[in-house]
């Protein structure tokens, strides 16, 4: 099931119903807390669309509190450090000015997200290695895929593809199913 969280609604509900800008750390922390409360009510494996469409300004402090800290809670870059929950995120409605703040905080923490444009196309934003990016983009083209498919599509050795897929899963950029892997934001 895909959940949808409109950040402007969370902002109005948790901080002030007159605000449209995501600025200041306390605001960001309150909004993230609101998101986490919503996630806690959902099942173990979730895909949540975080929607910025009606957000005015996003500053660095708020981007750090909302995007980076949310990801740090549910994603991991270390092989032995498994995330506590199977939560995935797709970020939608990101404007150019939002992107500036988001890219900055993602780079600072070595994180990455999947962003979806208004036309529906998806892209990786943040710190992503060349093989990770190639594998993820190949998966978007193929839909549901197994390591052998991706090895053929990308020209990367199968063993290395498996490592890359493990990393992408831990980083919550790819979802693992029994029959294969699907890129977050891609079609199965």
């Amino acid at each position, binding site marked *: 099931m895909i959940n949808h969280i409109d950040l402007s609604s969370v902002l109005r509900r948790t901080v002030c119903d007159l605000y449209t800008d995501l600025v200041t*750390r306390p605001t960001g922390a309150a909004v993230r807390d609101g998101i986490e409360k919503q996630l806690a009510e959902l099942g173990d494996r979730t895909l949540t669309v975080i929607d910025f469409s009606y957000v005015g300004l996003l500053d*660095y402090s708020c981007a750090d509190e909302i995007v980076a800290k949310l990801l740090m809670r549910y994603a991991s870059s270390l092989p032995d450090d498994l995330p506590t929950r199977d939560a995935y995120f797709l970020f939608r409605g990101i404007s150019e*000015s939002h992107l500036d703040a988001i890219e900055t905080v993602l780079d600072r923490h070595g994180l990455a997200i999947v962003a979806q444009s208004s036309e529906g196309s998806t892209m990786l934003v943040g710190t992503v290695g060349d093989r990770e990016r190639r594998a993820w983009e190949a998966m978007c083209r193929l839909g549901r895929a197994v390591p052998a498919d991706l090895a053929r599509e990308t020209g990367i050795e199968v063993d290395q593809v498996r490592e890359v897929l493990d990393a992408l899963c831990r980083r919550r950029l790819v979802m693992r199913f029994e029959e294969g892997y699907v890129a977050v934001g891609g079609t199965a």
Partner: protein
Amino acid sequence: MTTVLNVPPSLDDKTFETVLEQLAAVPQDAKVLLDARHTRWASPYGLTALLTLAQTRAERPALYVPESDDTSSYWSRTGFFKFAEDAFELHGTVPRPRASTESEVLLEITAVAKSDDVHDVVGRIQQKSQAILVKELNIDAKATMGFAMTLSEACQNIVEHAGRGGWVAVQTYRWQKRLGRRVVVIAVCDAGVGFRQSLETAQGRPRGDRWDDGMALEEAVIRGVSRFRDPGRGQGLAGVRRYIGRWDGKLSVRSGTARIAIVPSWDDDVPLEEKLPYFPGAQMQITIPERIADR
């Protein structure tokens, strides 16, 4: 006994130092009178720094307001007297408060103490800044959001670190002498703990042989060090630096006895000035010039 401090005819970040030099010899609990009768012009930094100076005194200081009607009227339109009435014993003729309808006052002097104040400032600046930045300063429309972000992060320095409230103001004016162009200037001043003391509260912070206001400013402004252990901290000032770099702007931050500046090619300021008269808190100025090349 009251000590009279002369406010220079043109009050900005540089000339405010002459006020602090006079103040340096005055005991903290002594009464001071700031004589601004002959002051004809003041930048947003000058006005917010004056309010900040009042905050630092044990006894409420006195202020002679400018004699020039034009000047005092302009100070009134910036919102200065709204706060000066509390901060100072005012002498002279204070113009009646009047809402600013002029385009040069992008943001009247506004008190900043908590997160809600930053929301208020950011909301208000966005209404006015688009037209001014694009039409008058020839700055790309995309820069407007970045300008509001910069303002937000600068104000948050007060909320997160100062330990007491401060003030922010944004104005545009023609900077004839130094640049011959219009500029938009953000001033954010507080009399809080300052950068050195703020960084000293960080646990486990290694202390080198040299540790002073200048080094604290270098760490915070240039290297993005924060008192918080959270690696996500320190991005605000880094973001401000990026913004001024992108738009050929200038950033200067004074704290304690030092002042650091990111200096663009059009300015001849020094990157670091030390051994200045001590003044508590942090006083920041961001200057974005009108763009000529794209015209």
